[in-house]
């Protein structure tokens, strides 16, 4: 009995790009679609789905899908599984592609051609795009395209994805192909105007990708492919091993036992510096815009809870979303550059031992690095970690990477309580404390990961690496630009709904019940104030007074909102954001003890508890288990360490 899967999708032809990772497939995709793409998720999984539109000569528009790069049709990671499912026609909500473009790297035919043979077995009509022919030519690899086509029995088209018209030949072939197809009948499919396709899943096309193959058979197939590829390469005179000596020479520095790590640290340091210094100008612009809009609205409308809703709820929520976008974008810019250039796997390699000692692998490095800007894109980047246990552990420790949203709180407290002194001749004490806070977060994360390694059997097993180190290449600005825009859009889409809703909720808690007319709002009398009162009964043991407790609640929406909440508590809400910080400093340095301040700093290292992060955690991990564990253990650690810091400081100061 055969099983039928009914797909609902847009009618019309679907082309899919497949290929190994690092073959320039995405650059080709960008080139073919001219940057007109839409990024979403595949149904039911957290794998990125990139679809674009390709316009042919006769103005007809084809849908083109950029499938995740894969080394084989026996998938290793969720990414690869999606590609395989789409090719088999069993991916949820996805149509089986009508035409494939198999992209291979002309400088690595050994690997590419094996993949082409595997793709050929799927039976889907395929064009082979021989990418990076310019690179190959510059190394003396001259490929007779016609001969290769003949050997493979498939059309091979040279492309240079990074050049403006590098896809010209490919587009011409596609034009010809689809002009022919237009007249040909559609086989075995009944398509109505809604584009409903009734496909039968059984069929010998699936045998090619069947996962019920015996392992020996799979291995034999791969060996057979290898032999065939060797034969083809010998016939074309391409079987010598020529490698990129430029790449090798770079690696002699970048992977040097001593130089390698040093260079890595320098690069990381430079990235962080840039992240903070480059983003100050845009962030100031955003702040000024916020102030301007706020004043306009306050001046145009009469005071009252409606105005307050718009200003303190909607506006500050919307601004809260984009405030840290500059920092996130700068960090992503560097990550994209490092990725395009081929350096990232080297960094993962250098860090692999360090990460391995706490039960993770080098692949956790990039997501954790991203978390320094904001944990949300960091958590989303964890899709690249194939091992599920590693992914969960990395998700759990990501919030400990000091995200930039904590900085306003850190700056306020350090500015108010840490004297401006120099230590050991030239080190600024304030800067040192800031650095110590960052370090504390990192050390805490490593410690937690290490404990999880000890306590779980899975943590002690060696996890596979088998990571390709592609040759170095110049990053392409156009690709980076597209990547950056996509990341920004995804981040905003993820976050704006949550933050807006939560900001309004917090505004509600902090504004109601309304004061009797004629009296100004006293925050202690609102719901938030009452909650804060209860909290302070527990948290006074770590030195938190009721003002702090109240502002922790809005702080869960966005850390910087904690500062405006503090401002409201101390009746400074009429001032702008900067005004609040400057005005707060002397107030709190008088009213709070040093122990309280340090305790609050410690608390923020562990548990600012950003609700948006929790929402993303739930989505990426597929349930509430991970977010709940995250919240509980972080609160626990925060309380313990704040307790220690508070009481130690009180003891030493008195």
């Amino acid at each position, binding site marked *: 009995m055969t099983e039928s899967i009914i797909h609902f999708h847009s009618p019309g032809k679907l082309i899919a790009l497949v290929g190994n990772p690092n073959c320039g497939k995405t650059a080709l995709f960008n080139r073919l679609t001219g940057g007109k793409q839409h990024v979403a998720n595949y149904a039911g999984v957290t794998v990125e789905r990139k679809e674009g539109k390709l316009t042919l000569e006769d103005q007809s528009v084809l849908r083109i899908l950029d499938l995740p790069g894969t080394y*084989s049709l*026996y998938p290793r990671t969720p990414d690869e599984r999606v590609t395989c499912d789409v090719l088999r026609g069993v991916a949820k909500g996805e149509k089986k592609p009508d035409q494939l473009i198999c992209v291979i790297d002309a400088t690595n035919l050994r690997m590419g051609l094996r993949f082409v043979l595997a793709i050929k077995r799927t039976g889907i009509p395929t064009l082979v795009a021989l990418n990076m022919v310019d690179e190959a030519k510059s190394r003396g690899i001259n490929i007779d395209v016609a001969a290769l086509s003949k050997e493979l029995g498939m059309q091979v088209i040279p492309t240079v994805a990074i050049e403006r018209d590098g896809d010209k030949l490919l587009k011409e072939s596609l034009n010809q192909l689809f002009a022919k197809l237009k007249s040909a009948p559609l086989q075995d499919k009944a398509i109505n105007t809604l584009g409903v396709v009734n496909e039968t899943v059984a069929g010998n096309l699936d045998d090619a990708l069947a996962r019920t193959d015996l392992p020996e058979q*799979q291995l034999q197939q791969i060996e057979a492919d290898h032999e065939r590829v060797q034969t083809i390469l010998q016939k074309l005179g391409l079987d010598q*091993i020529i490698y990129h000596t430029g790449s*090798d020479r770079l690696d002699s520095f970048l992977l040097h036992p001593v130089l390698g790590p040093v260079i890595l640290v320098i690069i990381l340091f430079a990235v962080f510096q840039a992240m903070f210094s480059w983003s100050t100008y845009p962030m100031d612009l955003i702040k000024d815009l916020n102030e301007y809009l706020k004043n306009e609205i306050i001046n145009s409308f009469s005071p009252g809870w409606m105005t307050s809703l718009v200003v303190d709820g909607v506006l500050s929520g919307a601004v809260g979303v984009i405030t840290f976008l500059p920092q996130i974008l700068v960090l992503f810019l560097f990550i994209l550059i490092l990725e395009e250039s081929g350096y990232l796997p080297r960094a993962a390699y250098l860090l692999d031992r360090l990460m391995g000692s706490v039960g993770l692998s080098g692949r956790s490095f990039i997501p954790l690095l991203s978390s320094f800007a904001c944990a949300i894109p960091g958590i989303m980047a964890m899709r690249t970690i194939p091992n599920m246990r590693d992914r969960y552990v990395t998700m759990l420790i990501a919030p400990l990477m000091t995200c930039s949203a904590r900085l306003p709180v850190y700056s306020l407290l350090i500015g108010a309580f840490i004297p401006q002194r120099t230590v050991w001749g030239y080190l600024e004490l304030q800067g040192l404390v800031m650095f110590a806070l960052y370090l504390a977060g990192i050390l805490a994360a490593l410690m937690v990961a290490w404990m999880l390694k000890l306590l779980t059997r899975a943590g002690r097993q060696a996890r*596979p690496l088998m*990571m390709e180190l592609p040759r170095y290449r110049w990053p392409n600005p156009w690709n980076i630009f597209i990547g950056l825009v996509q990341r920004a859009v995804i981040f905003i889409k993820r976050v704006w709904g949550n933050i807006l809703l939560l900001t309004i909720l917090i505004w509600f808690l902090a504004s109601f019940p309304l004061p009797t007319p004629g009296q100004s709002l006293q925050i202690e009398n609102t719901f938030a104030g009452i909650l804060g009162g209860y909290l302070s009964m527990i948290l006074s043991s770590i030195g938190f007074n009721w003002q702090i407790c109240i502002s922790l609640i809005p702080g869960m929406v966005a850390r910087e909102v904690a500062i405006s909440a503090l401002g409201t508590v101390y009746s400074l809400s009429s001032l702008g954001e900067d005004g609040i910080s400057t005005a707060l400093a002397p107030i709190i340095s008088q009213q709070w003890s040093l122990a309280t301040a340090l305790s609050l700093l410690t608390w923020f290292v562990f548990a600012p508890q950003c609700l948006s992060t929790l929402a993303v955690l739930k989505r990426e991990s597929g349930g509430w288990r991970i977010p709940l564990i995250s919240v509980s253990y972080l609160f626990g650690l925060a309380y313990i360490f704040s307790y220690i810091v508070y009481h130690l400081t009180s003891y030493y100061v008195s």
Partner: protein
Amino acid sequence: MLTLDLAIANQKYRIAQLKSEQDTGIDQERMRQLFELGFIKGESVIVLRRTMPGSDPMVVRVGTSTFALRKAEARTIGIEMVQS
């Protein structure tokens, strides 16, 4: 048999065979993945770098591709010297 984890750096070798589960504790799935990445009998292989203490992981060139492998993974790859 000589295995990749014991190879001399920058010396050309050829892959003889992948060692099975009993010898190394690496499962079938892992072996197939190594196969697919190109670690197939007859292919040339060179250890490029042993940056990390204890050579774990190490950088290896198989055919025209470069990979970072764990020592345990390299231990499953049996090699033989190439007569030049």
